[in-house]
């Protein structure tokens, strides 16, 4: 089979890019342990309000864990509980969220915090908040007529 010289260059370039991208993804997955935020944690969507930690939404300081704060969110049509949270700059925060009714989104605009919340499942994301500011938390999965007004606010304060 004859392959043109330039075609060989292009094939080499294409395959190397593919390998490079896969190495980056593989490194972040296997070395840093990054994974999709939907952990294999389940909750009865009918009884979310009674089950810990969702019976007490908000910011909780924790000791002896890899993170400093646990932030518990319960989403339902069409609001987040709590409607506003404040965490100190530089702290490591674990976001724990679920929904009581339909599928909702949980995205803090301008950050990598971006999860889907499915009824019956608990979504978690751990991050170190290293930039002060106010970040709008919004629903990015269409959930009904009030979807566009479904927001909360993450405040990272010094």
């Amino acid at each position: 089979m004859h392959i043109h010289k330039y075609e060989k260059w292009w094939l080499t370039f294409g395959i190397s890019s593919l390998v490079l991208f896969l190495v980056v993804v593989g490194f972040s997955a296997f070395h840093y342990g990054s994974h999709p935020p939907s952990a294999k944690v389940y909750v009865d969507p009918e009884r979310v309000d009674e089950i810990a930690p969702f019976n007490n939404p908000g910011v909780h300081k924790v000791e002896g864990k890899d993170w400093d704060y646990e932030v518990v969110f319960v989403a339902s049509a069409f609001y987040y509980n709590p409607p506003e949270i404040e965490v100190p700059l530089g702290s490591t925060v674990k976001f724990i969220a679920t929904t009581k009714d339909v599928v909702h989104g949980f995205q803090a605009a301008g950050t990598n915090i971006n999860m889907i919340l499915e009824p019956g499942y608990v979504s978690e994301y751990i991050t170190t908040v290293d930039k002060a500011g106010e970040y709008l938390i919004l629903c990015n999965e269409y959930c009904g007529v009030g979807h566009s007004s479904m927001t909360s606010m993450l405040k990272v304060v010094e």
Partner: protein
Amino acid sequence: MSKKREKEPDLKGTLYSVGVLGAFIIITWFMAFYLFIDRF
């Protein structure tokens, strides 16, 4: 039976155009990746 050897086509323009496309893909990929790394 003599078979005339075919002349190689000139693919320089093709190489440049796919090179530009490849560079665009690589650059935008790293821009998005930088955004991901930079944000919390």
